[in-house]
């Protein structure tokens, strides 16, 4: 149970690549949080900084108020499960799991007891004599996790642990991880680029992009109240439609002009008064756009239809913008057919030119 505080953490690699910039994060004791973002956003760098495998260029890392920024990795009480497992290929499962305890010079008996305890927890008692090359991917992963858990780390770091598993195994392991956290009650930091994993597993999600924290909030708020255009476009499947518009005033009414269509937003006058004649971006989730054969806000040509079980994702093209919408499974338009699309004003998200959200209902 450790509370982690990251203060203005910055990491610039040799050669000038800025991997992380002024990163601030407060992780409650015992919380399960995710670092979510596209490749190269600085997630793994953050993890390695917390583990002590990298030194930050600037900033501090505090564990329970104690500055550990330059403390050696083994003195931090941190366990890290690597994406590619990092199981030692020349050692058996048992030797792998016991390695950390051996380095810490525990007695043979204690090592044995702890290895067996963790092996039972992860149900790998029967593969302890196997060498890694004889293990399947799920076993490798469990050994990797066991290696880390056996040293009883205060903080558990997981670097995309599910990314090498196939779909069904991934779902199963996800459920087991969730269960494991209830048993261990540890502070867990989970790195992933998969939003489903992040949203389902964690108490809080930190969405990252280009080495910067975009939003740190509960999964629900991340989805419903995205702080900016990046988070809005990154979370949700299919992603939110983002359409550039300009706000124009006509007499008493306020209009949003997206070239292809205009919508009356007079009711949002209080919010948009400062944005008249300025560029904004509107966001609308595909779930909130309804395609129909007649009547709606704008017309667009069907570009593709994807069947996903109970629903169809319809992508349509109007001038130079692509709109994704979701229709019932029996609504199957032809390609290039002209459809009407409609949505309600109160489902809109509006972002300013810098990408910050200025309005949602």
């Amino acid at each position, binding site marked *: 149970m450790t509370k982690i505080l990251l203060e203005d953490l910055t990491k610039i690699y*040799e050669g000038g690549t800025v991997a992380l910039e002024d990163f601030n994060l407060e992780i409650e004791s015992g919380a399960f949080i995710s670092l979510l973002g596209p490749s190269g956003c600085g997630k793994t760098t953050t993890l*390695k900084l917390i*583990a*002590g*495998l990298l030194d930050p260029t600037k900033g501090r890392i505090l564990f329970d108020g104690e500055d550990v920024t330059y403390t050696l*990795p*083994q003195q931090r009480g*941190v*366990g*890290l499960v*690597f*994406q*590619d*497992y*990092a*199981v*030692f*290929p*020349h050692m058996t499962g048992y030797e792998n799991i016991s*390695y*950390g305890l051996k*380095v*810490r010079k525990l007695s043979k008996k204690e090592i044995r007891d702890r290895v067996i305890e963790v092996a039972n927890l992860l149900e790998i008692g029967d593969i302890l004599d196997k060498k*890694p*090359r004889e293990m399947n*991917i799920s076993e*490798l992963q469990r050994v990797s996790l066991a*290696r*880390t858990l056996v*040293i009883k780390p205060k903080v558990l770091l997981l670097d*995309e642990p599910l*990314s*090498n598993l196939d779909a069904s195994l991934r779902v199963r392991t996800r459920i087991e991880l969730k269960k494991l956290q209830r048993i261990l009650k540890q502070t867990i930091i989970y790195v992933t680029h998969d939003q489903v994993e992040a949203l389902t597993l964690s108490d809080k999600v930190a969405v990252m992009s280009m080495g910067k924290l975009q939003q740190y909030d509960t999964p629900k708020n991340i989805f419903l109240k995205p702080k900016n255009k990046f988070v809005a476009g990154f979370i949700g499947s299919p992603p939110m439609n983002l359409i550039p518009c300009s706000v124009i005033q006509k007499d008493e009414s306020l209009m949003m002009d997206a070239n292809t269509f205009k919508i009356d937003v007079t009711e949002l006058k209080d919010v948009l008064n400062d944005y008249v004649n300025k560029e904004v971006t509107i966001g609308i989730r595909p779930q909130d756009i309804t395609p129909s054969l007649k009547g709606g806000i704008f017309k667009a040509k069907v570009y593709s239809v994807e069947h996903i079980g109970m629903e169809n994702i319809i992508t349509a093209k109007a001038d130079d913008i692509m709109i994704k919408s979701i229709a019932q499974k029996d609504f199957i338009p032809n390609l290039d057919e002209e459809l009407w699309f409609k949505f309600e004003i109160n489902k809109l998200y509006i972002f300013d030119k810098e990408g910050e959200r200025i309005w949602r209902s």
Partner: protein
Amino acid sequence: MKRVSLEKPKIGIHLYVILILVLIIAIFPIYWLTITSFKPKAEWIASPPYWFPNSPTLIDYYVLFFSDPSATAQVGAAFIAFKPATKSFLDSAIVAGLGTALAVFAGMLAAFAVSRHGFGGNTFLVLVLMLRMAPPIVAVIPLIVFYSFIGFTDTYHGLLLVYATFSMPYAVWIIKGLIDEVPRELEESARLDGLTPLQAHFKVTWPLIRGGVLATALFLLILNWSEYLFALMLTRGNVITLPVQMTIYQTYAGVLYGPQAALAILAVIPLVIFGIVIRRFLARGLTFGAVKG
């Protein structure tokens, strides 16, 4: 697309014929060396040649180790006292063996520095290789002058250092490649377990690259074992390596092909033994237990 057959390809008889021909061509020089070493002087360069020693003898081996005038007379060099070859085996073992060991050890440390700690970037690696870009003869003359100043001429450490220096670039390059293949995460994982970076190199990465490093050592040992130029120019009789010993059988009374062949056969044996000893480490096939996503 061509279908890939899972069946074992059938090797036709014609392929065997070709393989056997290639084998004969490859083995013939060794065969010739072997039979020459058992031939008496009259058969060494007889025409037509003897394809097998007509009257096999061990005299060629005998004269290598014993300065017995009656024996040297039999190989046609009655009045020449040859230095016994025993010393040259010992000298070669010291100079080539330690030189190689030094090159591999220092090269491995450098390879870790480059591969794991980003030392010197690519510039360093190219600089290291540049040491080998000029022909060695370029270095010999200044080395002779320099060595005579510091008293390194004709000493074990003098020649050994030259061997280490000139084989190290290979060691750095080959071993760096081996280290690059081992996922960095293995060491990072060990760091979290409490190992220092240096311990992680030697306790985690070393067992995984051992086979490759030993193969590198064998490769460099072969180069250094048969090195002639530096040995010839930097020694004068205090240190005699095998290739230099080989030349003393080119006498005013003619070239003693038999003893030369005998020495060559004996000189190969230590390398073969070393190769057999390290063979069990050479088996590759460790997948490093890591799976790339």
